[in-house]
């Protein structure tokens, strides 16, 4: 009898401490968003979470050319990094979402990704005692479309990075913090490489849409932004991605066709050599850039230098 009581008391203590741990770790709607981001509850067969395709150790991008969703279905485009979205204005490669909240819900219903109706997602969340309590705490109601989107978007807004060696160099003006190759690379990035024509700003993007020459209407037939706007001038245009942590987000481009940064730089140096039959390639890339091998190596060194310290340290913060 004494042993039974001891076991019951211990069990109660374990349950109680577990519950208090949960309530301690989820103190904000951002924390709730993080829990949702990593929880496969939002996919049809409870196998895929947002983090399945936006992996923390790869700057919240994926290593696959296109991500694999429920029932091993392949997505249509490469999963971009979910970091540094705070000041972005359009989301997805084709810019079909006008807010991070709008973006956050779309993969749940996408048949190739999580394939779960939002009604079913909300039913699951509201049937979960844990989630029902959390939504009530932060949104004063059960889970709704708006609160689900808000929580996930709020978490994503915390994923800002700004502590790379490049940042430190610019902030402190101490050039010993980066190699001469990085400095030369930044200069090429800003001048001869014409990179800042599109990749300019605090996250190295102007947040606009460009056709860089990866549409030929044959084997490269994703028309991108034009599907959203209906404007033929937008054919083959995709959102210019930011470049922070780009060393971690391979493969590259909307279709994941380049495996390394070196391949990307070689493409930009002479796009016509890689895709000779591109339709409506941007005028910035009308002529080969004429970069030397040294220029390209320096550019790559610069791109590596915008990797945040949390990744250059041995253990990446998982955000989990």
């Amino acid at each position, binding site marked *: 009898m004494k042993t039974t009581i001891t076991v019951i008391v211990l069990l109660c203590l374990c349950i109680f401490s577990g519950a208090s741990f949960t309530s301690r770790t989820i103190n904000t709607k951002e924390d709730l968003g993080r829990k949702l981001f990593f929880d496969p509850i939002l996919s049809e067969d409870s196998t895929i979470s947002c983090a399945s395709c936006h992996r923390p150790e790869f700057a919240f991008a994926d290593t696959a050319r296109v991500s694999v969703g429920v029932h091993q279905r392949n997505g249509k485009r490469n999963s971009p990094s979910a970091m540094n979205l705070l000041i972005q204005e359009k989301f997805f490669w084709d810019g079909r979402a006008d807010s991070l909240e709008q973006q956050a819900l779309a993969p749940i219903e996408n048949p190739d990704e999580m394939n779960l109706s939002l009604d079913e997602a909300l039913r699951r969340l509201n049937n979960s005692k844990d989630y029902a309590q959390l939504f009530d705490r932060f949104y004063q109601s059960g889970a709704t479309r708006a609160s689900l989107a808000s929580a996930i978007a709020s978490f994503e807004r915390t994923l800002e990075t700004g502590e790379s060696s490049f*940042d430190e160099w610019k902030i402190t003006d101490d050039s010993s913090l980066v190699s001469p190759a990085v400095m030369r690379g930044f200069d090429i990035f800003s*001048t001869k490489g*014409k990179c800042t024509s599109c990749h*300019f700003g605090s996250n190295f993007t102007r947040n606009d849409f460009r056709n860089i020459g990866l549409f030929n209407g044959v084997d490269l037939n994703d028309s991108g932004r034009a599907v959203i706007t209906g404007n033929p001038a937008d054919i083959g245009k995709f959102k210019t991605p930011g470049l922070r942590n780009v060393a971690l987000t391979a493969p590259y481009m909307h279709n994941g066709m380049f495996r390394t940064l070196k391949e990307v730089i070689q493409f930009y140096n002479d796009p016509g050599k890689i895709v000779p039959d591109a339709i409506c390639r941007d005028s910035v890339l009308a002529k080969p850039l004429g970069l030397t091998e040294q220029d390209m190596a320096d550019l790559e060194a610069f791109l590596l230098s915008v990797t945040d310290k949390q990744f250059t340290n041995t253990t990446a913060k998982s955000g989990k």
Partner: protein
Amino acid sequence: MKFDETFYTMKLLLIFIQIVAASFLLSDELSGRWESKPSPKGSVTTVVFKSGNRFEGFVNKKPFVSGTYTYVDSVFHFSDNGCNGVAGDYRIIFYNNADSMRFETIQDSCTERMHGMERLRLGKVK
């Protein structure tokens, strides 16, 4: 003859000192850290005017733009890495006892930058 040469050298030296002194005095008005108030989206722009007529711009503490400038008779002439090296000219209007400044376009063919500059209000960070 020797006197003329010495006089000429001294005159050159004096002119040089005047130019250096003038550039120091003028750049002192700008040098240091200036910051905007948060935008509706919460973004804060910081501009740091450095030695050697260089400046760095930051958005939310992330490097945003690098460039070089001159500042003579209220005219801020600069080029940066965002507009393919194209230079722009702006008149700087100081207000609040020279603790704050705004930019009035004189000429800038870089339209995107011009729109940003016209909206920009910076306060001196002390």
